């Protein structure tokens, strides 16, 4: 094993030993490798090794046109594909100073929030499974299927939609979209009670998560932990609230904030966010204004030379897109600030001194998606 690990031996105490969690391991949710240094069952330190699913998306973007880049962003955080698309579309629209129709903004906001619910549902599945409750997995997937059905009906695909284009949408929503979304919200309001009964209120789950993996507000800010994980520590970082885009400035919703910063708080943040997302959708779904679903754009989009930055609130935190354009049809340099990479960086800090089982629970509550870390 020694030649695989390549760790400096000098700081390692004699009782410590290393295990490789991953690249193939049930709790890393993908091909992430954590070299964990253990003393008995206690985690002394850990070292994440990224890059097993690195596809060079940022480099590929330098050769692609802006409408093509949209399709690559789907493949980063594939669980919030719409929101990733939204970031690039808004960046191009702002750079070209195109005003998109109100209808587009409404639809984008609704679809983003649906995507956020779907993402949190899958997180709930896998978190339950990390805790050892396999039944959660099937409950969550059952309800996520309803959202994917709505997506499939309107956009023709279930996971990687590429529904947004610079200037608007690929196609108009399906005539049944509003009816189905309202039916889903009615259905899910009932089912989310099951989630609480099965996992949130469970004494074992509460014992295992409360007070485990505490992340202070200062650390959350200095590590750049955003999204529900950052807000659980009291870091007000919701882009939707502080830098509104879409029609988030027209709806009433709470920025769900926590104080404890432990695993249970991070869990509760996402449970609350699902309620908040449903509230946002309910306010918008009946008021989608009529009009065009896209604006007329030029055949070849060329951004004026300069630097551009756009951020959105993805399901796992703040997604930033940074572009340097030299006036050509593809960017000179493109950089994604992915929420998962920052969230992963804090894993070593919060899990020191915990047990292996806690490490798995903390990893589940940080909710990382590996393709977004590696890009």
């Amino acid at each position, binding site marked *: 094993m020694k030649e695989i690990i390549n760790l400096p031996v000098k700081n390692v105490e004699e009782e410590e030993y290393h295990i490789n969690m991953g690249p193939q391991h*049930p709790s890393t949710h993908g091909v992430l490798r954590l070299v964990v240094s253990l003393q008995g069952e206690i985690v002394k330190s850990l070292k994440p090794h990224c890059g097993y699913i690195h596809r060079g998306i940022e480099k590929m973007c330098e050769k692609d046109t802006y409408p093509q880049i949209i399709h690559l962003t789907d493949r980063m955080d594939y669980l919030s594909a719409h929101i990733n698309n939204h970031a690039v579309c808004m960046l191009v629209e702002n750079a070209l100073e195109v005003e998109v129709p109100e209808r587009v903004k409404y639809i984008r906001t609704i679809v983003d929030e649906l995507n956020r619910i779907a993402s949190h549902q899958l997180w709930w599945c896998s978190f339950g499974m*990390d805790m*050892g*409750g396999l039944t959660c997995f099937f409950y969550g997937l059952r309800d996520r299927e309803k959202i994917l059905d709505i997506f499939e009906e309107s956009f023709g695909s279930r996971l990687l939609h590429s529904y947004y284009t610079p200037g608007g949408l690929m196609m108009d929503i399906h005539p049944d979209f509003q009816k189905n979304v309202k039916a889903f919200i009615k259905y899910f309001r009932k089912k989310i009670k099951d989630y609480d009964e099965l996992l949130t209120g469970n004494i*074992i789950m509460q*014992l295992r998560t409360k007070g485990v993996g505490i992340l202070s507000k200062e650390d959350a800010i200095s590590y750049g932990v955003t999204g529900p994980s950052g807000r659980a520590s009291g870091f007000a970082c919701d882009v939707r609230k502080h830098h509104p885009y879409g029609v988030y400035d027209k709806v009433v919703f709470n920025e769900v904030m926590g104080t404890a910063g432990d695993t249970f708080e991070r869990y509760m943040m996402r449970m609350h966010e699902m309620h908040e997302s449903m509230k946002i959708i309910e306010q918008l779904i009946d008021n989608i204004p009529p009009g065009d679903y896209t604006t007329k754009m030029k055949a070849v989009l060329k951004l004026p030379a300069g630097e551009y930055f756009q951020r959105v609130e993805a399901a796992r935190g703040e997604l930033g897109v940074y572009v340097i354009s030299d006036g050509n049809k593809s960017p000179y340099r493109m950089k994604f600030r992915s929420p998962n990479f920052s969230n992963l960086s804090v894993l070593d800090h919060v899990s020191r001194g915990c047990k*292996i089982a*806690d*490490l798995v629970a903390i990893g589940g509550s940080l909710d990382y998606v590996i393709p977004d870390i590696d890009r």
Partner: protein
Amino acid sequence: MNFSIYDFTSFTQWIDKLLYDNLPAFWAVVVEMTIIGLLVLLFYALIGLFLVYAERKVCAFMQNRVGPNRVGPFGFFQTIADLLKLLMKELVYIKNADSLLFNIAPFIVIIASFMAIAAIPFAKGLHAIDFDIGVLYVIAVSSLGVVGILLAGWSSNNKYSLIGAMRSGAQIVSYELSVGLSLVTIIILAGTMQFSAMVEGQANGWFIFKGHIPAFIAFIVFLIASTAETNRGPFDLAEAESELTAGFHTEYSGIKFAFFFLAEYMNMFILASIAATVFLGGWMPFHVGGWEGFNHIMDFIPPFVWYIGKTFFIIWIMMWFKWTFPRLRIDQLLTLEWKYLLPINLVNILIMAFIVLMGWHF
């Protein structure tokens, strides 16, 4: 010979007499042992297969799924197909593993559970051996399995396996106490350790009803502790798949893995059988003292059906546990045993002894 499904005693005695009449005493014993061994082995394999199927169906129903439904009627032959697959799979030999211990471990686990099943009364007159210390024997033998698990984890040359085995060792050593002490509570009430005498003692009411609240508490403690002792969820720390991939049997493949798998299910069956026998009357039908007509109707259901029904009811409860609760952490697991279950158990024994002394039980 008069054969009856309500009482196997005359049937087994007839076979015994037949053998001893026709064979020398030594060979009669040999033939008898062989027959019983084969029958128990057959029963063991069939119950194991059925339990795997039952678990898949039960967990499917709890998870909005259908479960196996393609091979045979209601997917009934799925486990047989799986067994054939496991039999034909390659046995992987691991470099730098302690091959002797590695190969012995699955056999220790399966022999321990196989030995325990010999002492369990399935119906009136239908058990392999009727020890006068049956309860003690079953507890002693079923706890041998942990040796196999520890050896498996130690010899696999895998850190996950080692962690799993150490957890399993700590867990079984702790929970063995609760299993034993909750049975002691009932032994005080029954006044015997012999399974057949225990069952006979429940002819006018099961011990769980006869022993007031202490018997009920002992039953609950036994359920929790036996779930822990069989390494099943929420106490499946030894093979916690989200932490340790598969725990102590990570490195095993083919039929050796199947042995561990089968032994886990059979341990569940054995502990459920003990719970059914000790607390719920074993093969004894449900009787209420004084209700002659009701008791007579209950007697029409064969004892074997009563036994299987009670055992599977308890197995179903264990499966329900597993598919509902998340897993405990190792320190919480040990806290539960040493700080809660053990003191409760000890106080419970005192109360039970007091009740029996004062003659307050039914």
